[in-house]
């Protein structure tokens, strides 16, 4: 049985290569990856500039909205990076070949996570550089905490993406809209642009179940109060460990159920 749990870097890189080929051959996909983060960054950037001139709170922490936007988009792109990699296989009706190859489901999941990192980089690096050019604001000035924010949000995106892929296996293309909408479901309770404390009590309890809420609270603490809340980062990391295991379990559970139901050959139809 040990052979069943050995992961192959060659097989994982083969799947990354497959998506790299798609990205390389399609300038529209590349453009789309960079387009939305850039457009939104520009919009939020100008809004922030306006608020700086009219709000003492924002004036205390120039760039807090811009940073919040960029990090939110990181989470959103990370989840989409996993889901869209899987959807690419469904759209091309290729899953039948993938699932009869020696590629393990775990290797498929890892390859999608790698692609998620590549996609988020393609989307957010240009946007972050434009923020420097347009507003003189660099998200990289956050320093080391940025790495903690990045890791926590990307991993939470993976967890959501893997769970969504599980639903795609179970419900087919009918579940495609989940990939596009899931991020917006958690958006209001993640405290991206406002503190969790402004939410009703019961909703605060929900918010504290999401790693993203910890990250954005931590971001505000760092930028507004100048305090490094590593306790919040630790809370996010602990929750992420649960979520990413849960996301993987949902994927593997639905994959096994699909093998019971005979859904794998028909996927994408």
């Amino acid at each position: 049985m040990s052979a069943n749990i050995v992961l192959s870097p060659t097989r994982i890189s083969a799947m990354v290569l497959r998506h790299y080929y798609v990205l390389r051959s399609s300038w529209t996909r590349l453009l789309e990856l960079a387009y939305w983060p850039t457009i939104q960054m520009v919009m939020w950037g100008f809004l922030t500039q306006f608020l700086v001139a009219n709000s003492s709170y924002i004036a205390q922490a120039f760039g807090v909205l811009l940073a919040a936007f960029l990090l939110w988009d990181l989470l959103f792109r990370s989840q989409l990076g996993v889901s869209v990699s899987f959807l690419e296989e469904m759209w091309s009706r290729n899953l039948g070949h993938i699932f009869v190859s020696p590629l393990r489901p775990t290797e498929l999941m890892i390859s999608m996570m790698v692609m998620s990192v590549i996609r988020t980089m393609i989307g957010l690096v240009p946007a972050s550089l434009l923020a420097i050019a347009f507003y003189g604001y660099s998200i990289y000035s956050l320093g080391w905490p940025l790495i903690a924010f990045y890791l926590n949000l990307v991993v939470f995106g993976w967890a959501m993406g893997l769970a969504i892929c599980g639903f795609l296996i179970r419900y087919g293309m009918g579940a495609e809209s989940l990939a596009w909408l899931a991020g917006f479901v958690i958006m209001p309770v993640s405290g991206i642009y406002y503190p969790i404390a402004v939410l009703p009590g019961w909703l605060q309890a929900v918010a504290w179940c999401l790693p993203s809420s910890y990250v954005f609270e931590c971001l505000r603490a760092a930028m507004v109060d100048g305090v490094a809340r590593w306790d919040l980062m630790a809370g996010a990391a602990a929750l992420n460990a649960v979520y990413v295991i849960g996301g993987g379990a949902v994927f593997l559970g639905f994959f096994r159920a699909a093998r019971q139901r005979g859904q794998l050959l028909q996927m994408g139809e």
Partner: protein
Amino acid sequence: MQDNVVIVRDLAKSYDKVRAVDGISFELKAGEFVALLGGNGAGKTTTISMLLGLLIPSAGSIRVFGEDIARHRYRVLARMNFSSPYVDLPHRLTVRQNLTVYGRLYGVDGLAARIEKLGEELQIAELLDRESGKLSSGQKTRVALAKALINGPELLLLDEPTASLDPDTADWVRGYLQRYQAETRAAVLLASHNMAEVERLAATALIMKAGKIVDRGAPKDLIQRYGRSNMEEVFLDIARDRRGPGEADAEAAT
């Protein structure tokens, strides 16, 4: 190589109250070409899906290369491959890119040379740098075959490999499969609705109906036993529960 590449025993698959495959048993030896025949819904694709590990059986066992596929699926998948016109390759990727990805998934050594060799053999060398989505049906079939042969499989599962091909291309594909099998002694399991194809390629035909194997044998023996002139007539006799020409004539008269 062990003589029996595939051993299927009492294999069954049920969905709720539907018994898609109902206790079938058969073997497939190295160098043997076996055809799986049957009408739509007879259980052919379900059987192939279980052999590939895509579908978990409700009962029975499958051993491939001596390994229980329920426990060691990934150990045997590298030694087998599959082709079906109902499963595609990514359209945006060129043929070479697709073959590169699958070659790496199957752990093929000397991959670039292998792709060139298959390109020559399958007459797709000039297509290697074209996008897979821009090929004709015949070209796609040959590319799908290249993918199915990328790892030099010892067991090849083919689901209607010549479906929707023109007679010339279909004949070429059959000829190629015959040569490949003769050269490599691969075991081939073919699901097909094309009875002429079965007569030409298969040493043994397994005829399925309502999830069971209702008859089996060499095509020429089956033709003789049913008193028919070709496998198509044998197939119709079995599909319509007739016992031979006399009963068919009586049916035609009514």
